[in-house]
């Protein structure tokens, strides 16, 4: 019973971080119809910005917004300089469907290379604002700690903020209209190009938060070669696909499912199998429900 509770709490916390990553994948997908495999790389780079801020100001609450602004800036830059050129150069020909995928992979490699060149391959440490020592129930200690509670609260707050932004504001309406029908949006006076950049920036900021919390919740160390980063890289994509790629709610559900499954595999089956578990879940979901849990049918083969 105790172990079960522990497993669920860890799974939900990890899942919340994956959800944020999935949200950033979905935001980019909806604004430019590209799966950005470099998203985790961008999150990692923002986390390094956060680390630099931490070194200078020694406060997590300064480091977090610095990472978010940095992440948004990088994402906007990539969209403006790189994606626009990509769409212009390779939107026809046999490579049209493949080119964006390969290009974002190249971007991932480039970002990782740049990070390693600047900060070196060694682990860099980042400490959370509250302790990661678990709460106690009687004489037992939970793996769920004040830090994990904080993570959960921050992620939920961000999601609420994003939901309000999307559903209740004019910016949200522009973002949604541009995603569903760029042409009607433009005819209605929406500056779709600007909205695309905005969508990328939001994704960059969300990814930065995911990166920061993924790091402090892991063993506190991170590098392009760390397990924390590899998990971020695949989990965002897998959670987004489980949720059907189009919906933010789906991304959250996908992230939670993934977090719980990984947590259960780790706790009850085998600690060396947890990297293959996401792949297996993905395969099962794709076979049973190819449109994702909340996805619309037939969207997958477009």
């Amino acid at each position, binding site marked *: 019973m105790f172990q079960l509770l522990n497993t669920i709490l860890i799974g939900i916390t990890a899942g919340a971080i994956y959800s944020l990553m999935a949200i950033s994948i979905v935001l980019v997908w909806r604004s430019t119809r590209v799966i950005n495999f470099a998203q985790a790389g961008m999150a990692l780079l923002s986390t390094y910005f956060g680390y630099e801020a931490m070194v200078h100001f020694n406060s997590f609450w300064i480091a977090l917004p610095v990472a978010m602004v940095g992440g948004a800036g990088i994402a906007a830059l990539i969209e403006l300089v790189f994606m626009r050129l990509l769409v212009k150069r390779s939107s026809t020909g046999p490579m049209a469907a493949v080119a964006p995928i390969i290009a974002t992979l190249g971007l991932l490699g480039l970002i990782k290379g740049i990070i390693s060149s600047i900060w070196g391959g060694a682990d860099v440490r980042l400490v959370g604002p509250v302790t990661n020592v678990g709460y106690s129930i009687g004489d037992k200690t939970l793996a769920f700690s004040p830090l994990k509670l904080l993570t959960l609260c921050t992620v939920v707050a961000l999601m609420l903020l994003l939901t309000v932004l999307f559903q209740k504001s004019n910016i949200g309406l522009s973002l949604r209209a541009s995603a569903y029908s760029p042409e009607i949006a433009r005819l209605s006076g929406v500056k779709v190009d600007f909205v695309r950049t905005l969508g990328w920036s939001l994704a960059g900021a969300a990814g930065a938060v995911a990166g920061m919390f993924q790091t402090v919740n892991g063993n506190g160390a991170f590098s392009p070669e760390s397990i924390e980063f590899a998990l971020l890289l695949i989990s965002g994509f897998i959670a987004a696909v489980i949720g059907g790629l189009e919906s933010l709610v789906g991304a959250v559900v996908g992230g939670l499912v993934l977090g719980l499954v990984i947590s259960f595999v780790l706790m009850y089956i085998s600690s060396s199998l947890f990297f293959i578990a996401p792949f297996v879940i993905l395969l099962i979901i794709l076979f049973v429900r190819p449109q994702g849990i909340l996805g619309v049918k037939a969207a*997958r083969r477009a």
Partner: protein
Amino acid sequence: MHKFKSSHHLGFFIIFGFILFLTGNRVDELRVYQGASIAVYVVAISSIILLTGYSGQVSLGHGALLAIGAYSAAVARNNFHAPVVLTFVIAVLAAALGGALLGAAAARLSGPYLAGTTLALAIGLPSLANQFPIFGGEQGVFFDVGFPPPSLGEGFTQYKWFFWIAGLAALISIWLVANILRSRYGRNWRAGRSNETAAALAGISVSRSKILAFTISAGVAGLAGALLSMTIGTVSPSAFPLALSFSLLTGAVLSGVSTLSGVMIGAVTLVAIPEIADAVATRIGVSERFTTNLPGLMVSTLLILTVLFVPNGPVEQHRTRQARKAAKEKN
């Protein structure tokens, strides 16, 4: 080139192979080893070209298929004492089986979904090696193809033996792939790639054709995996990192994904990049940190630049330019 019959191709390949083997006797050991690496990459890249360029499916997880080939070859050799030739056949068959399974999933997916699924596989599969003791965990297992036969003479080195095996395997697989691509199956793949609906209406079973492409591609990748571990001597999870899958993809893009004839460009570039990076770093004298990351940076930059400026590869680009020139002269 397309007018040649396959038998002419065979003759061409035999002559080409003969020249290669003669050069093998004239250069130093390092070059021979690099030659073997190039041959390995040729095999691996041609499997990606077949899959991505001709059948339009993206796999970011070919490293995983290479791993399947390598591990099964090693297990066959170590635990069942199979002869060398048979280990390579087993590598091909095992990887092809894995490819068929993956292909069955892949046929239901397109573009980004398939790319992500294979990516998850590439990250996840090597961890299986830790789960089963037969694969030797992080340290991995040995894969030893043995010394060159004494009949080849005293001066025949181990590296030259690797080069011979890899070179022969590369020639055979290129010849096979080239012929498959020009067969009915190759045409079906290209038809499915450019328009699935039209291909289906023309009576092509698109999903069967896709699964077949994945299976053959995986088989070739398995061979490449076995060859790769032959040149390293061991099989371990660290030999098949995500970076391997990415550099193979880069090699394929540099070669021009939609034409097999550029495959050497990609293979040679992949082998040459570390050396070029080293030379550049020494010349400009930058920090060690930057030097170790330079090859990775160069691969990524090349990948991005190629996708942006010659998305169909240099060979195809050249061909289009020639064709345009010819059309202009006609007018």
